């Protein structure tokens, strides 16, 4: 058991924090969100240079790390600075999905520019039950799909589109965003980042444009979306911590009734409750990432716990940060309102707490796994029995 970040991880976090501190002011961020469809090429190049896009991928796949814990550190920093660029959609989700499914040549083709920052790939999956279809055979396919809320879809140059083939199995098709027959409706999300609805109307694609060796992509998609949830959890933790720290600073400075807000016991206790929430949320994100980095982990348990608990803690921190900022919290005068929307976005994305709670019931509770430690690996103890009580 090793509970400390490595020196490399700490150095990496430090350099990313420094980069964002110098290059990603709140004013700049506002500009990117409002005017640039959530994408600043310079920032993207900067993040690529730091190595951010290679972090979610193992060296075997051309990446630099491959662990979700390290990916989490990237996402946490992005959350702190409210970065709107589509790192989650491209580097984490599309990147890891390609790594899981693609064959070697496709990996080289797709991941090398993705890591270098010269290509942005968006994963177009959710179709609200309209069932994207992939028809045809070895000499080519026809793809029809209506996808919604594609993260980073507004500025991606490539799309990874999931669709059902004739056998009812999921396949992933690679499409250039500019392909004729593909139309995009970009829009802003609640947190200021940009997504798109994607319409693919009977587009012909070559069989080499199907990712991988032709087996069902369903399990890889499920696993990758879980990775995405955990990455989003870290981003939320970063946002939460920043909102908390800015609130601490604000109540120390702002005076009312001849003393700093921090002089009021009620304010002190609220800030303390926020601190507790931040600690808890950090633990939840760390647990999920460490578990998903392990072999044979109970993904349901780790992901569901993180999403539910961080949603809860994030909601509390967001509300109190706004309340303690007063008018400054409910306006665009400070970043606080944006943190609020960011944390609300996190709650709504990838499914609600209620859904993850149900997932925990169906998998963890039903198997009585919740009677065992969430942290320690499952024990090899089958041969040891206790006397009945």
């Amino acid at each position, binding site marked *: *058991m090793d*509970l400390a970040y490595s020196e490399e991880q700490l150095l990496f976090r430090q350099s990313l924090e420094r980069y964002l501190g110098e290059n990603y002011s709140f004013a700049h961020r506002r500009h990117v969100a409002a005017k640039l469809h959530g994408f600043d090429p310079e920032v993207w190049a900067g993040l690529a240079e730091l190595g951010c896009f290679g972090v979610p991928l193992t060296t075997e796949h051309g990446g630099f790390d491959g662990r979700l814990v390290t990916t989490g550190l990237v996402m946490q920093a992005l959350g702190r600075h409210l970065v709107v660029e589509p790192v989650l959609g491209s580097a984490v989700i599309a990147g890891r999905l390609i790594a899981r499914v693609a064959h070697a040549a496709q990996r080289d083709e797709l991941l090398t520019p993705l890591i270098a920052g010269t290509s942005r790939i968006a994963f177009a999956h959710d179709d609200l039950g309209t069932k994207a279809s992939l028809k045809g055979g070895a000499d080519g396919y026809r793809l029809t799909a209506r996808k919604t809320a594609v993260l980073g879809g507004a500025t991606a140059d490539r799309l990874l589109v999931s669709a059902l083939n004739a056998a009812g199995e999921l396949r992933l098709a690679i499409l250039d965003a500019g392909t004729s027959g593909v139309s995009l409706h970009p829009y802003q999300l609640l947190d200021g980042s940009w997504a798109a609805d994607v319409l693919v109307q009977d587009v012909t694609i070559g069989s080499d444009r199907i990712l991988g060796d032709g087996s069902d992509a369903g399990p890889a998609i499920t696993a990758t979306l879980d990775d995405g949830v955990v990455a989003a959890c870290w981003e939320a933790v970063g946002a939460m911590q920043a909102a908390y720290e800015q609130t601490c600073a604000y109540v120390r400075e702002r005076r009312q009734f001849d003393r700093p807000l921090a002089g009021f016991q009620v304010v*002190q206790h609220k800030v303390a409750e926020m*601190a507790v929430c931040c600690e808890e949320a950090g*633990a939840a994100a*760390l647990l999920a990432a460490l578990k998903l980095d392990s072999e044979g982990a109970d993904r349901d348990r780790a992901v569901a716990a993180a999403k539910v608990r961080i949603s809860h803690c994030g909601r509390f921190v967001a509300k109190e940060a706004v309340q303690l900022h007063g008018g400054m919290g409910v306006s665009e005068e400070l970043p606080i309102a944006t943190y609020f929307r960011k944390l609300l976005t996190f709650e709504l994305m990838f499914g609600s707490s209620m859904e993850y709670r149900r997932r925990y*019931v169906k998998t963890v509770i039903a198997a009585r796994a919740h009677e065992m430690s*969430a942290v*320690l690996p499952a024990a090899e*103890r089958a041969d040891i029995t206790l006397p009945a009580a």
Partner: protein
Amino acid sequence: MDLILTPAQRAFRREVQTFLATHLTAEMRQGQMLTAGVYPEPDVSRPWHHALYRKGWVAPLWPVEYGGSGWTTIERFIFESECALAGAPVVYPIGVRLAAPVILAFGSEEQKRTYLPRILSGEDYWCQGFSEPGAGSDLASLQTRAVLEGDHYTINGSKIWTTHAHHANRMFALVRTANTPRKQDGISFIVIDMQSPGVEIRPIISIGGEHDINQVFFTDVRVPPSGLIGEVNAGWSYAKYLLEFERGTGLFSSRLRSGLKRIERAIDALEAADRHIRDNMDLMARLADVAIEIDVFEMLELMTLGLLEPGQRPGPTSSVLKLRASRLKQTVGELGVEILGPSALRWQDHPEDVLSVIVPDYLNSRAATIFGGASEVQLGIIAKSLAGV
């Protein structure tokens, strides 16, 4: 960073499991299961204490030369987790975890030789004399006095909320030995023989209907100067050391988990009586929420304490742990009551089974946020030390 056990840790875990399978009897497990409150009765905890004593596992936090087990925090975590999972009795901590650290840090060699072996062996059973009728969270305003009269101190006054005073043969107490401008400066830390003439015990029945706590009256009780720990009038700093030690070394998560496990057994009992709890999605969702809180708290505890050397104190984050653990204890209890539903209405009319203990345990858990540093006190510490407000 990972949660994977080293070979040595796995071997240790295995050793603990084997020990439990060999030495933990059905009676001990049953006794712990039926405990509605913090500590089991001595007839439950003593036999287990003896088994651990023979193995050298009673005192994980003591230096090895005094009989400590020499474990790392991770090993202690594994030990506690396995013990709780197996349903082992809680080791009565007032001697081992409260009195002993103060004696070790501030006692004379003679005091160490007198008291420590008898704590380790379980021969002495201690209670703690801190709170007084007029001094709760504001401990320093205590009024019980010890006056040096010739060759002994004479003690007059009263202590309240004294857990297991009626079982104990020794008490460590804070007593006023001087009237100083700053109340804290006139307090001493003293050991009182509970069999001394002038000690009277009045039982106090708890909200859960149990006799665990007491009021203790001292009328001209004589204590030899050898009972004084450390310097006269320096007791306040020892008490602070003790309280920090208490907060910072507890591993609460495993016992919260066994609370959850007890609820599972209650559900089994209800299902056996045709009450279909597992089909009730509202209750299952509540159960999932609580299990998730415990999962996350377990990680929080591990990451807070896991990097510390034995004896090293974790600082103000320990207040976060105390706060969360005490609230979670109540949450677990409340969940149990909700699951019992109408069965919870029968007061002391159950056979001695798991259904009889859920309600008293919940009721008694209301004390968890009051004693040992009330939640309001912890929030004050967190605000000041963690948030800096």
